[in-house]
């Protein structure tokens, strides 16, 4: 059976120019990304800002058209943006955004916001639509008396529940979540993470979870893809990625997460900043910041290779015993 979602060699190029009259230059925000999401599986996409995570998410939904490669849902190619086929597909693939206040319409009540997807996709009659609104509100932990409230009358966690509820209205098969809990406080964040985990488990949803918060990703995701400068540098089961990362960038990323009881000195602190995607270093893009870089890394782009069970990594030294000894 074909996977729920498959992306092959996706490329997204933005044109930028320096100054008003500067020459336009191409920034490859996403550069040859392939991934698969199976039914009922959560794929985490992690990386720093500018690594292309959000651009990737938008392409998976077909909001941005890929300039190279293709997206397949249930084995079928993504229809053209705005076409009737694309619209009906969008009922089955929904997105959850980071900032709930920006994603919600401030002038209409919660119930109307939730009804809107059903109106747009012409699902059911007005009675069954309201019944569905109430059903979904309860399933995400909203109270029915909140149906007539406006977004500004709700707390941050409740607003994010409304956004999630709205995404669930059309009974999608796949959710793309772009930093869904980053704007929430710790105690509320845990509520929303649990809610997503339950929904995913109960409904067998496929989920792409884009986040920079590694702790949340580890808790929620089955598989994780690590992005650096528009490419996936490592991908594998969440447990393996976090306990035995193969790519030096993943190692640094995992190690940079503050954990109580672990001294700062034992962490790998990367020097420098992520380079500008418009000015990609030759060879392995990570080599200027990599403490294991050797000559080969400076001029040869590493191929993605298998690095353990169900793991792949784009590093010349991935899977070598020598690297593990160094780490």
């Amino acid at each position, binding site marked *: 059976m074909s996977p729920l979602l498959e992306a092959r060699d996706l490329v997204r190029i933005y044109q930028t120019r320096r100054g008003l009259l500067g020459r336009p230059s191409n920034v490859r925000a996403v550069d040859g990304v392939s991934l698969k999401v199976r039914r009922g599986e959560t794929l985490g996409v992690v990386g*720093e*800002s500018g690594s292309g995570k959000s651009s990737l998410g938008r392409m998976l939904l077909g909001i941005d058209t890929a300039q190279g490669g293709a997206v397949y849902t249930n084995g079928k190619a993504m229809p053209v943006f705005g076409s009737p086929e694309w619209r009906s597909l969008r009922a089955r693939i929904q997105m959850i955004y980071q900032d709930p206040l920006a994603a919600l319409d401030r002038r209409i009540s919660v119930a109307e916001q939730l009804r809107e997807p059903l109106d747009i996709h012409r699902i059911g009659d007005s009675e069954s639509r309201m019944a569905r609104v109430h059903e979904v509100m309860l399933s995400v932990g909203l109270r029915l008396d909140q149906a007539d409230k406006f977004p500004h009358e709700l*707390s*941050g*966690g*409740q607003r994010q529940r409304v956004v999630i509820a709205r995404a669930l209205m059309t009974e999608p098969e796949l959710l793309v979540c772009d930093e869904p809990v980053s704007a929430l*406080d*710790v*105690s*509320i*964040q*845990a*509520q929303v*993470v*649990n809610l997503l*985990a339950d929904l995913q488990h109960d409904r067998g949803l496929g989920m792409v979870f884009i986040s*920079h918060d*590694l*702790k*949340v990703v*580890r*808790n929620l995701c089955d598989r994780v893809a690590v992005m650096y400068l528009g490419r996936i540098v490592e991908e594998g089961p969440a*447990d393996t990625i*976090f*306990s035995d990362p193969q790519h030096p960038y993943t190692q*640094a*990323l*995992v*190690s*940079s*997460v*503050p*954990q*109580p*009881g672990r*001294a*700062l000195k034992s*962490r790998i*602190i*990367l020097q*420098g*900043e*992520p380079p500008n995607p418009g000015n990609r270093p030759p060879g392995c893009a990570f080599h200027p910041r990599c403490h294991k870089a050797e000559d080969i890394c400076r001029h040869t782009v590493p191929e993605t290779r298998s690095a353990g069970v169900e793991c792949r990594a784009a590093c010349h030294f991935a899977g070598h015993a020598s690297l593990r000894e160094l780490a």
Partner: protein
Amino acid sequence: MNNLVEIRNLRVAFDGVPVLHGIDLDVAPGEALGLVGESGCGKSVTWLAALGLLPGKASVSGSVYLQGQDLTGAPRQALERVRGKRVAMIFQDPSSALNPVIRVGRQIIEALRLHRGLAGTAAKTEALRLMDLVGIPDARNRFNLYTHEFSGGQAQRLMIAMALAGEPDLLIADEPTTALDATIQAQILDLLITLRHEMSMATVFISHDLAAVAQVCERVCVMYAGKIVEEGPVAQLFDTPRHPYTQGLFDAIPSLSGPRRRLVPIPGTVPDPRHLPTGCAFEPRCARARTFCTQHRPELLPQPEGRQLACAYPVPVAQDAVQPEEEYQ
């Protein structure tokens, strides 16, 4: 008086709604103190109030002493000699705190002129030294750039350089790494720790990230709804949190190692400051609450093991757990 800063019964109200309910807090010279809590708990307001930075509609009472000098109600001129000079502050979003139309070198020189009276070559040399100190690579060539030409992490380094210009006794870092990527966050935390030792200044680290606080600080205050609910050394608080809210915060954070477990969220939400519960502010969300908690607001009281705690029925520590009958009725 040995403390650098002593805050006594600090209260703040906005439009008659109290948001800070009597904060008592000391900062010793050279100490690193963490303030932890969720948005709206008053961790930033505490320090904005202490430095007279709140807008006019805020009514502030209580006292704030900086080495014996009372800052509350002090004239503007006196406050301006303190702010930026003896107590410096850095904020979450460096790009909005820096001036976008003035070259960064000049911004640092401005701080040096105001706080240390430096001018000309001396100021420029010192500004370059500060840029080197906070780890801006190639400072000499980047002296004349504008802020938008720096990345977020480097803009935060520039903010820190400006904060250090007055050689402060106390640096207040308000969520300094929240807007930064994980690997850059690690760099800035590392920088704050190094600078504190090199310049022997006290640091107050305001954050919602318990783990980041644990790495930078020696002592932590946990705040909830405008009050300190638990205070103590980092290790003690992290090993055996006793306030149910502190415990709840730990349980709500997913971990990076060990078996994956379902998160334990704190139910409900932070109370509206306009309608605070009559008793303990945490009572509606607390699993350990009893009838007593709905009527009595607990005071922050010193505990035998050295911490301070504001809870009538705290989480038992290991030896207490032997008497389950009393605790779990």
